[in-house]
């Protein structure tokens, strides 16, 4: 049964002030209701005024997604009553959004390998964020809600896709790609809490579509969609129908719940916001286009061509702009292939394990530090294990590569010392040596392991293997 998924992605923009008022956007970690004014509180008589930078960021995103930016844009009022919306309406866009019809390429890693897929973008528009509701306990059990309007009026860009995504996994990959593009543009920070929120439309062949609202994390998307697809499949299997409805995603329990809403599209009574005049955005387009940097797809191709690295490495290195910049800095000074392996496979693995971003990590390991580590490695001063050890130590406790190598005694030992260790190991493990001569391959692995133990990992296993073989064959 064919699954069709379309997403509405809301991304907070990194402006200094809110979309329609001059309140600071730096409210994360602030006391509630300390970043608000008459406008974002919806007090009578307060007038909105459009933030030009937010508008330019919206256009920048639209262009990066290959959309056609419209000559003129108009803001609308979307009317509904909810405690997080102080005016009783949200200022958003309707008939005249900033842009239509774009395209995002994703690499869907299905069973048949990395398949490139095109996901069509329907439209890009701007709107204000509502406030934030806090419940004591869960939304079901709380007796009242607490409202914080700090988020009210934050600039959001909404990116709507066509129902081109075929699985929850693809939806996750798409969102990852979108995040990557927005971060390249320097208009968005995916690490900020609630920076990206998603509503998803899901339908299975033979059923109506359901809309799942309130997916507020990158990880939540795949989980929410799996749950919803399973729910719909079970209904269809039992011969029941999937109703067209709006459902709420409960992140804590990982399930979707019917919202039994009595509101329909026409109930929002959209009409042009009389306090904001039309804006002719055509004049911004060329200027904004020049601010768009090299994007992940182009960078990936350039890395493959220029540094002769694998597609997998190029994908991994260009996903995040900070990783890409780090890699280019290192690769320009040291063997680009070795750099790719050590950044994409080793460093990124260590960062994932510690849940730290590349941006954070680069304050602990600079590209030059990394060049030093790779230089030691290439010239045989340290082994693979020693290099990994230095990276770990720098991430956990700081310090410089040379200090750590000295302090921890990580320098590789010379062939003479290895030979001494080999002689000792052969003497101590006569039976294993006999096994080797009898043709048991595992015996050699065992003996190499023993030599590594003797040298506390400061010898290259490959070199040990060769020397061991030579010694025993003689």
């Amino acid at each position, binding site marked *: 049964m064919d699954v069709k998924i379309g997403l509405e992605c809301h991304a907070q923009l990194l402006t200094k002030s809110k979309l329609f008022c001059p309140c*600071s956007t730096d409210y994360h970690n602030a006391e509630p209701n300390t970043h608000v004014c008459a406008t974002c509180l919806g007090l009578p008589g307060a007038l909105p005024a459009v933030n030009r930078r937010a508008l330019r960021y919206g256009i920048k995103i639209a262009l990066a997604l290959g959309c056609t930016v419209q000559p003129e844009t108009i803001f609308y009022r979307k009317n509904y009553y909810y405690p997080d919306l102080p005016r009783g309406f949200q200022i958003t866009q309707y008939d005249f959004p900033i842009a239509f019809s774009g395209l995002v390429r994703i690499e869907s890693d299905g069973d048949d390998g990395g398949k490139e897929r095109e996901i069509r973008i329907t439209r890009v528009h701007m709107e204000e964020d509502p406030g934030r509701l806090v419940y004591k306990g869960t939304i079901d059990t709380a007796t009242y809600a607490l*409202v914080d309007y700090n988020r009210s009026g934050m600039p959001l860009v909404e990116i709507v896709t066509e129902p081109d995504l075929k699985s929850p996994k693809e939806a996750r990959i798409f969102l990852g790609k979108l995040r990557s593009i927005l971060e390249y543009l320097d208009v968005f920070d995916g690490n900020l809490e609630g920076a990206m929120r998603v509503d998803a439309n899901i339908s299975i062949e033979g059923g109506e579509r359901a809309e799942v609202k309130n997916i507020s994390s990158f990880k939540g998307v795949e989980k929410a969609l799996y749950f919803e697809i399973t729910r719909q499949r079970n209904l269809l299997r039992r011969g029941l129908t999937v109703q067209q409805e709006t459902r709420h995603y409960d992140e804590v329990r990982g399930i979707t719940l019917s919202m039994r809403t009595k509101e329909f599209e026409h109930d929002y009574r959209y009409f042009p916001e009389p306090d904001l005049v039309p804006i002719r955005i055509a004049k911004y387009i060329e200027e904004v286009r020049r601010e768009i940097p090299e994007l992940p797809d182009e960078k990936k191709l350039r890395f493959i061509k220029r540094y002769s690295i694998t597609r997998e490495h190029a994908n991994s290195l260009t996903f995040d702009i900070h990783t890409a910049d780090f890699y280019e800095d290192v690769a320009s000074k040291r063997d680009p292939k070795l750099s790719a392996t050590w950044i994409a496979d080793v460093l990124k693995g260590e960062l994932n394990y510690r849940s730290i971003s590349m941006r954070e990590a680069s304050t602990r390991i600079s590209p030059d530090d990394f060049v030093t580590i790779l230089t030691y490695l290439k010239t045989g001063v340290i082994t693979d294990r020693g290099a990994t050890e230095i990276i770990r130590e720098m991430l956990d406790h700081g310090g410089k590569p040379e200090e750590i190598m000295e302090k921890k005694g990580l320098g590789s030992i010379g062939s003479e010392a290895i030979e001494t260790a080999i002689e000792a190991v052969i003497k101590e493990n006569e039976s294993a040596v006999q096994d080797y001569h009898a043709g048991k391959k595992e015996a050699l692995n065992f003996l190499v392991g023993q030599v590594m133990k003797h040298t506390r990992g400061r010898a290259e296993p490959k070199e040990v293997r060769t020397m061991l073989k030579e010694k025993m064959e003689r």
Partner: protein
Amino acid sequence: MIRKEEIEHIGWLARLKLSEEEKELFEQQLSSILDYFAVLDELDTTDVKPTYHVIGITDVVRKDEPKEALEQSEVLRNAPKKEKGYIKSPRIL
């Protein structure tokens, strides 16, 4: 003519509890407003472009400069119920 159910729905959209007398009153008032729109509909607007704004200006934007916000105590002054800096509201599902 507007039906009573529609009045009730509009009341619900505005989260207003309407009495039977009010429903009757609004039924009459909204019906006469709709009747007047029927009169407006008689006008031939085939060659008239839709109006989105009545004031003839465009392109009003402001610089992205943050300014001082209100004091929290000021913000909460009009709130009938508050708790730890938040405004208390009924729970709505």
